[in-house]
C-alpha cells in the first residue's frame, strides 16, 4: 500500500474513519472489503450514497431527514397533531420511532443550549417551534409539548428554557420520566438515578 498523498485508498480510508463508530483500523477493513468486490459492494454503495445525498433533506416542519418534504411523519394522517415531542437531534427521533411509543409529531432542535460551547437559542430551532405552535390552525391546535431531552446539565437547561418560553402559549409542557430502567435491578443503580426515581414515584 502506498503512502503518497492523493492515493485513492488512503483517501477512502480517511473519509470512512471520519464516520461515527469507525476508527482507522475498522475503516481500513471496510475499505478492503469494498475493494475486494467492487461490483457487488462498492459501486452499489456509491450509487446509494449519491442517491441518498440527492434525495434526502431536512423536513421544513420538524427537521427530520426524509426523501419527502414535509417528511413521512408530518404527512401521516394517523398521527396526533396536538402532540409534539421535542428532541435534540434526528438520532433521538429515530430512537423514539423504533420504540413505537409516540403517536404524535416531532420537532428536532438541532442541539442543546451550551454557553460554553457557543450554542445559543438562535442556533437551535426554538423560534420555528414557537411559530409552529402559534401558527397552528384550530383543527391542528397543539395541546402538549413533550420535552425528550438528555438528562445532562445542558439538556435540563434547554428543557427549562423551552418551558419558560412556552409559558402563556396555552400548551401543556411535559418531560420524559427519569428513573429505574426496564428490567433493571435497584442495587446497581447510582444514587442520583435512584433519588430521581423516588421523587418521580407514582400511585399503583
Amino acid at each position: 500500500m502506498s503512502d503518497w498523498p492523493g492515493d485513492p485508498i488512503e483517501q477512502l480510508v480517511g473519509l470512512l474513519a471520519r464516520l461515527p463508530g469507525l476508527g482507522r483500523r475498522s475503516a481500513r477493513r471496510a475499505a478492503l472489503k469494498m475493494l475486494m468486490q467492487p461490483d457487488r459492494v462498492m459501486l452499489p454503495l456509491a450509487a446509494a450514497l449519491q442517491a441518498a445525498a440527492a434525495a434526502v433533506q431536512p423536513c421544513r416542519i420538524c427537521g427530520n431527514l426524509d426523501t419527502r418534504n414535509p417528511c413521512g411523519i408530518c404527512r401521516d394522517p394517523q398521527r396526533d397533531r396536538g402532540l409534539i415531542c421535542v428532541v435534540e437531534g434526528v438520532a433521538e427521533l429515530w430512537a423514539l420511532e423504533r420504540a413505537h411509543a409516540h403517536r404524535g409529531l416531532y420537532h428536532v432542535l438541532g442541539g442543546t443550549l451550551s454557553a460554553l460551547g457557543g450554542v445559543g437559542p438562535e442556533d437551535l430551532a426554538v423560534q420555528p417551534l414557537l411559530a409552529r405552535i402559534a401558527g397552528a390552525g384550530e383543527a391542528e391546535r397543539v395541546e402538549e409539548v413533550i420535552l425528550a431531552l438528555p438528562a445532562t446539565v445542558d439538556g435540563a437547561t434547554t428543557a427549562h428554557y423551552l418551558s419558560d418560553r412556552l409559558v402563556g402559549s396555552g400548551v401543556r409542557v411535559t418531560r420524559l420520566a427519569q428513573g429505574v430502567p426496564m428490567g433493571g435491578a435497584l442495587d446497581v443503580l447510582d444514587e442520583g438515578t435512584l433519588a430521581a426515581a423516588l421523587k418521580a414515584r407514582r400511585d399503583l
Partner: protein
Amino acid sequence: MLRDFRSYGALTVAFTAPIVVVSGENGVGKTNLLEAISLLGPGRGLRGARAAEFGRRLPEGPLPWAVAGRFENGDWPAFDLGTGTPEGGAPERRVFRLDGAPVRSQAELAERVATLWLTPQMDRLFQDGAGDRRRFLDRLVWALEPHHAREVAAYENAMAQRNRLLAAERREGKVADPAWLSALEDAMARHGVAAAAARRGLVGRLNATLAGGITGAFPAARLDLQCGTAAALDSQPALAVEDELRAAWAANRRRDAAAGATLEGPHRADLLFTHVPKGLPAGLCSTGEQKALLVAVVLAHAGLIAASRGFAPLLLLDEVAAHLDAPRREALFAALAALPAQSFLTGTDAAIFQPLRGVAEGFLARPGELVPDSDLPVPGAG
C-alpha cells in the same frame, strides 16, 4: 505487587499487620509505595497524577505499569484487584481488574476498597484559599457518596455558563436572554443545594464521630462549614432553599456581571477547623497542632467509612508521625490500633516507631525494594 511503577522495577510484599510502618531516607520511594496503594481505590491517587506519569522511566520513555493487591478482610471472601496501563495500550489509559474481570465503573470499585491519605502537601490547607479546603471536604464526601462529584461538577458547569453569558453581556452590551439565565440558575439551584446538603451532612457526621472520642487521647478537631446555603438548610426544606437561591441569583445578575463572577452560592463555602482541647481556630494553631487537626479529621473519616461500608479502609499517613511530639505520637498510635482500618505510616527515622513494637510490622525502604525491619517484626510471629 508493583511492576515498573515509578521508582520500582518489580516488588512483591505482604502487609499482614493492621499497622504497617515504612521507614527510610528521603527519595527511596516511600511515598511512591503509598501512592501505588492509593491507586487501588477510586480516583487518581494521592498525588492526583495522570496514568501516563506512573510508569518507570527509561531513556526511551515510560514503561507500562501495574499495581495489584490481594485483599483479605476477616470473614469477607478475599479478592484480587489490579490497575495499570496494559502492554501495548495507550499510556494514558488506566484499566482496573477485579478477580481478573474488567471493572466497569469507579462505583463498583468503591464498594470494595476505600483509600484515604494525609500527605505533607496537605499541610498548606490552612494557608491556602477556601477553594482547597472545599475540595478537601468534597473528596471526603465523595468517598462516602460517589454521586457528590457529579452534583458539584454539574453546579460548576451551570455556573460557568451563567458567568459566560453575563460576561458576553458586559463585553458586547448585548442583553443576555433572561429565560436562558433563569434555566441555568435553576440547574445551579438544584445541583448546588444537593452538594451543600451532602457537605453539611458529612460535617455533622464527622463532628459526631470526633465528639464520640474516636481519636482517643489524640487531640480532637471540630469542623465548621461556612456556607449560607448549608446554614439555610438548618431551618428550611431544600426546595425552599432552592427557591431562595434562584431568586437571589436572578436579582443579582447586574452585580455579578460587573464583578465577572457569581458572588454568592455554595461554591463560596469554606471549611473551618477548631482545635478542641485549646478551643483555637486552625489559623492560630502551631504547624504541629494543624497537622494534628488534619490527622483527627482523617481518623474520623476512616471510622465513618468503616461504619457505613462495612469494610476497613486503607489509611495512608505520609510523614505524619515526625511532626508530632512523643506523647501525641503515642496517642496517634493508640488511636490507629483501635481504628477499623489498615494504616500505613512512613517516616525517615525508624526509631520513632518503636512504641509500635508488637502492634505494627515494619519495613526499611531501600531504592526499589523493601526489607523487613527486624526491630518491628510481624506481630504475633514469634
